[in-house]
């Protein structure tokens, strides 16, 4: 989501005052700062529990509860972050549980200065925080035992939820009461990685059991006494305004409580979802269609293509493309469409608004901002608003909306309802509601010298900015005339090409856009990794070896590239009609390479096998890493093969899974994940599996058919 390259000090300057009246400062909570934890009653703890810092509570019943400040949206943070803490604590893993953190500055993301989940950064940003919190708790439990036994703390050791001294043993639960009276240490000693008992092991996820019997509570499952349900009739075209509405029929339908105009549209409030949805169908709304009424995506792409003919804002310039001595050159224009996040759980939000408080239940990735925006609408100071983070039925960036669209409108509805309300988006509402991955056009020209060495590369990208207009614009764009999120992944192209230029054109279009899993990398990797293959073709070299030669100074790129190629059996013959393609990419501090094997029959591409190599440095849970890498490959393959949002006369043409398909079981290839074992700095894992999928598949299609893919989703009729 938000890229890591952002310098931390820039966040000092970020204020979301514009959106919510809350000033966010940078802070990196150290142990001492964490000592003043939220009152344990606020977290529902018993008075007998020991809560040495904001991240852990140990009960006299031996339960170790890890309070997790990142949202669980499938990426496993309710397991990997507790593992970090429990390992340093020497906890008995069978006693470890998790709890979502309330909204509180103590739970801010160390780098972003606000509570949020994104950028594939939960584990690497929490690494120090959670380990220190566990180590501090352990030191206090040792001190409590040492006091009780009147022995030096240094003579005590810990093991599986107990402090030991000789043959004596006190469990953490037995020590909780005494330890709670001690002062947290200023400094803690962290384990030597060779002593890790949990970190690095494929520990089973803690949240699996409740996801197998219907027990897990997602936002859409929240129930409050006296709660009503609402759906909203939103504008059919972005920017359209409600002129008038006729609710004569809808108002008298069963269960309908109220129909009311709010800034987002017209809210239909009823006893149940089905009643609200049925009444909405009977509602007649007149819209002033506004400036986007003739918007059409194929025209937009045509304009993008024209624009790419002129130089854009300079992003990167190595050498001089104009004077490079090129023997053979090639030009390719890559296009990718708008994409929907399409989480399985459509957007929803529950609000209980009282005169002096507001409680919100939702699957949020942006707690601080959502709280601030909710407070503004509720007319309350942010501290009077609490946001309860539920399980997220997928996030992929959509639940991190800078304007908190799905939270803000629910607060408006709650104001009108006067009782607790749940706003549910239908699948169609969710798909048509905007905040898409922006469409992009990426024109590349490049050439090789007489010996087939790549000597020249010019990338020109045209597309909408994600950051512009958000509270992050000032910090993220840093006075640059381009959005780094538009060009990430090509601005740091690792290939040794002496003359290399990257230029950006920012398009101004009234379609709301947002970060979607792997953000800019989701399209830059497609264009760059396909073009590297085209250059290899120009040089008459093997695509894998061609990359190797250009990556000699990048050992970690080479590492994953070699691993994927070797495990996939690169170079070994495939059955007739099949092809193999390769891609490598760096994103979110991790290195990834994929090899795809495909066949093409009657114009249909079938992916048979994907071999993924991932280097995310020191890793925490290889089971989760494999799951994220596989899931990322499938997410990327879905986009490559099937997905496209198109507009005609301002209206989105897609409504549901039948018009915006997701890869299904019968289409899913066999996928292998190979993890590089090293102790480098940890990187992300939620997003790095996505970018290589599309180019690996597209390059495999070329190997199988001799046709180049320059547009997603892949259609053989458009191959060149």
């Amino acid at each position, binding site marked *: 989501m938000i890229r890591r390259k952002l310098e931390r000090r820039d966040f000092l300057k970020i204020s979301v005052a514009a959106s919510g009246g809350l000033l966010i400062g940078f802070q990196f909570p150290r142990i001492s700062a964490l000592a003043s934890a939220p009152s344990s009653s606020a977290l529902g703890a018993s008075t007998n529990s020991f809560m040495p810092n904001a991240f852990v509570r140990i009960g006299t019943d031996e339960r170790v509860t890890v309070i997790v400040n990142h949202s669980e949206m499938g990426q496993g943070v309710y397991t990997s972050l507790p593992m970090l803490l429990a390992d340093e604590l020497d906890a008995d893993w069978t006693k470890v549980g998790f709890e979502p953190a309330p909204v509180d500055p103590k739970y801010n993301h160390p780098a972003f200065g606000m509570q949020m989940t994104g950028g594939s950064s939960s584990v690497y940003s929490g690494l120090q925080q959670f380990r220190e919190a566990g180590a501090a708790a352990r030191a206090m439990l040792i001190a409590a035992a040492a006091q009780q036994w009147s022995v030096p703390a240094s003579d005590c050791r810990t093991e599986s939820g107990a402090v030991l001294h000789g043959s004596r043993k006190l469990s953490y639960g037995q020590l909780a009461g005494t330890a709670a009276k001690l002062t947290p240490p200023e400094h803690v000693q962290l384990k030597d990685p060779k002593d890790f008992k949990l970190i690095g092991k494929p520990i089973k*996820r803690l949240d699996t059991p409740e996801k197998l019997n219907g027990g897990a509570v*997602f936002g859409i499952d929240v129930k409050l006494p006296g709660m009503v349900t609402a759906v909203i009739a939103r504008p059919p075209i972005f920017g359209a305004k409600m002129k008038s509405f006729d609710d004569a029929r809808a108002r008298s339908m069963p269960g309908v409580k109220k129909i009311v105009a709010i800034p987002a549209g017209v809210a239909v409030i009823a006893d149940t979802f089905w009643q609200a949805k049925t009444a909405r169908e009977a509602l007649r709304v007149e819209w002033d269609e506004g400036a986007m009424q003739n918007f059409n995506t194929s025209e937009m792409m045509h304009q993008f293509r024209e624009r790419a003919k002129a130089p854009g804002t300079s992003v990167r310039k190595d050498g001089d493309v104009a004077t490079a001595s090129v023997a053979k050159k090639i030009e390719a224009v890559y296009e990718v469409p708008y994409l929907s996040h399409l989480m399985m759980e459509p957007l929803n939000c529950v609000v209980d608004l009282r005169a002096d408080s507001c409680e919100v239940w939702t699957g949020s990735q942006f707690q601080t901002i959502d709280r601030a925006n909710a407070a503004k609408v509720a007319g309350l100071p942010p501290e009077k608003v609490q946001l309860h983070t539920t399980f997220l039925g997928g996030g992929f960036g959509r639940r991190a909306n800078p304007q908190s669209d799905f939270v803000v409108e629910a607060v408006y509805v709650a104001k009108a309802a006067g009782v607790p309300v749940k706003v549910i988006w239908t699948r169609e509402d969710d798909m048509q509601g905007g905040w898409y991955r922006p469409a992009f056009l990426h024109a590349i020209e490049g050439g090789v010298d007489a010996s087939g060495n790549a000597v020249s590369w010019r990338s020109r990208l045209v597309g909408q900015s994600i950051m512009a207009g958000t509270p992050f614009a000032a910090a993220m764009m840093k006075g640059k005339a381009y959005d780094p999120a538009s060009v990430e992944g090509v601005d740091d192209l690792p290939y040794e090409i002496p003359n290399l230029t990257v230029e950006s054109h920012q398009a101004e279009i009234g379609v709301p856009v947002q970060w979607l899993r792997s953000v800019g990398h989701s399209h830059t990797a497609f264009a760059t990794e396909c073009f590297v293959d085209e250059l290899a073709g120009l040089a008459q070299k093997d695509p894998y070896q061609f990359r190797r030669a250009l990556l000699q100074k990048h050992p970690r790129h080479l590492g994953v590239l070699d691993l994927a190629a070797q495990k996939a059996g690169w170079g070994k013959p495939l059955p007739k009609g099949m092809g193999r393609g390769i891609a490598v990419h760096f994103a979110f501090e991790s290195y990834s390479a994929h090899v795809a094997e495909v066949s093409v029959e009657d114009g249909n591409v079938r992916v048979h096998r994907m071999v993924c190599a991932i280097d995310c440095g020191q890793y925490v849970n290889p089971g989760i890493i494999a799951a994220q890498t596989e899931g990322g490959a499938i*997410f990327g393959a879905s986009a490559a093969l099937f997905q496209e949002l198109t507009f005609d006369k301002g209206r989105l043409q897609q409504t549901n899974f039948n018009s915006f398909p*997701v890869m299904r079981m019968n289409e899913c290839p066999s996928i292998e994940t190979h993890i590089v074992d090293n102790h480098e700095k940890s990187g992300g894992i939620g997003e790095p599996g996505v970018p290589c999928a599309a180019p690996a598949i597209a390059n495999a299609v070329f190997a199988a058919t001799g046709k180049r893919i320059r547009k997603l989703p892949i259609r053989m009729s458009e191959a060149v």
Partner: protein
Amino acid sequence: MIAFSVNGKHIDLEVDPSTPLLWVIREQLGLTGTKYGCGMAQCGACTVHINGEAVRSCVAPVSRAGGKSVTTIEGLSPDLSSPLQRAWLEEDVPQCGYCQSGQLMSAAVLLREKPKPTDEDIDEAMTGNICRCGTYPRIRKAIHRAAEMVAKGGAR
């Protein structure tokens, strides 16, 4: 008045008979393990059993359940003792988890009808259930594993 049973419990309900079974289960009966995903039988998140048959409850009017026996994820085995749930645990299948109720309910019918499913059987039975997180490879492994458990007689 519609009468049916849900997870072995008799239910009498005053409800518009055209209301989809999904919303009756979720809102009237409070069983929220069955999920809404698409509302048009595209994604399978709402899969329940009516008299043992896998049904997309988002498009099935509640009247269709009249006099019949409905099983939801909550009725599969609350203590996670079914071979499928045990296999799902061993393969650590769920990511976000939202689609998994439907996946399990579809897999339960598959295993009953084909105790030793091939990969093709799995494709056929599970293709109506979308997982946006991409847990398909693990679902496939877990179904094979559950089938092995049943074959070994280690489970019901």
